[in-house]
């Protein structure tokens, strides 16, 4: 799988006042992916991430719980910064409800940064938690977990940290964790996002 850098100047999608249609969110994601982001070789990305995980496993002497936590905190640090990049690029207005948030995450954010579109499913009754099902995961291409790791290690745990950090910076306190992973032998890769609460105190003034 190879990605290329391109510089086309196709007309950009108009940003409507309210983020009502998921089609608009999808359009924004695709436009920004196609025209506005510099891309690198996917193999290099996979290898870099793989070397991070394997080095962590070595450093923590195969204590996979610690590796998971470290990946999560690395992801958290990335997420709190990545959100500004996302907002500067897309200028998406604040989501009215958690359903819109899930769409923005899956159709726009993942598309822009990883060029994948995970599906949103498994909504809870109170509509405050959902699952993201990944059909493809560029972090874990060509990866096979060893026997001891496949019981405890969540290979792509950095994604959980990224999501948690990014959502926290927009005043959504969420819990993000993996439920299943094809690398572990499960049928699909599923990530669960649960909204604990909206941090109203930290919301910047001047919003409705």
């Amino acid at each position, binding site marked *: 799988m190879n990605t290329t850098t391109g510089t086309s100047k196709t007309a950009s999608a*108009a940003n409507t006042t309210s983020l009502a249609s998921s089609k608009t969110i999808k359009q924004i994601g695709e436009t920004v992916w196609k025209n*506005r982001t510099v891309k690198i070789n996917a193999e290099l990305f996979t290898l870099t991430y793989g070397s991070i995980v394997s080095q962590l496993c070595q450093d923590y002497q195969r204590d996979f719980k610690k590796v998971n936590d470290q990946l999560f905190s690395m992801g958290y640090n990335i997420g709190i910064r990545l959100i500004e990049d996302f907002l500067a690029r897309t200028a998406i207005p604040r989501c009215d409800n958690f359903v819109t948030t899930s769409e923005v995450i899956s159709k726009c954010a993942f598309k822009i940064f990883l060029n994948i579109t995970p599906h949103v499913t498994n909504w809870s009754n109170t509509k405050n938690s959902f699952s993201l099902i990944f059909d493809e995961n560029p972090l874990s291409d060509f990866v096979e977990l060893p026997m001891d790791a496949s019981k405890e290690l969540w290979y792509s745990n950095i994604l959980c940290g990224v999501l948690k950090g990014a959502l926290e910076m927009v005043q959504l306190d969420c819990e993000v964790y993996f439920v299943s992973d094809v690398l572990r032998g499960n049928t699909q890769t599923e990530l669960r996002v649960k909204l604990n609460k909206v941090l109203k105190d930290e919301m910047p003034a001047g919003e409705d």
Partner: protein
Amino acid sequence: MAIQSVMIINKSGGLVYNHNFIEPKGTMNSNDYLILAGTLHSVFAIASQLTPKAVQISNKSSQKTETQVPYIPGIGVSTENKMAPLQLGSFMGPDYFQEPFTNWNKSGLRHMITDEFSMFLFQSLTGIKFVLISTNNFRNNTSVSIAENILRKIYCIYSDYVMKDPFYSLDMPIRSELFDSNLKNLIESL
């Protein structure tokens, strides 16, 4: 548009960045700037509290159209040379963005116009505020849109050169030469 200075205020109201492109007429030492940042931060919040009741009751849908900021091409990037698009940090293409966008700031303070200068405030969803002081004081909507476009571009530069610097701690003063030089390029090319 002559830009006098750019300030960045973090979400707790502390001054994170301040740069004067034109020497201000008054003498302000660094303490004054910190006080200025804190004042702006709190005034921003108070302004949203002072929204007249009549506005709160009135039809909300008519308000939404006023928060759209049109995209104004050619600010800070040259429109002449279309063959070689600039490399704007991690943003590709002829410009940082090319669509109109909604202003996140719905009821907080947006601009202040005085006889000698105009001040524009831009707040992102994460609470970080960008302040632009310009020595013009045109009051029409176009100059306001130009200022908002400039502020969003500064936000793009910020998200690139400040956020992606692994040695920068969040909410701390910005000491990045890359950010300074890119900002300078943007402002000087206006």
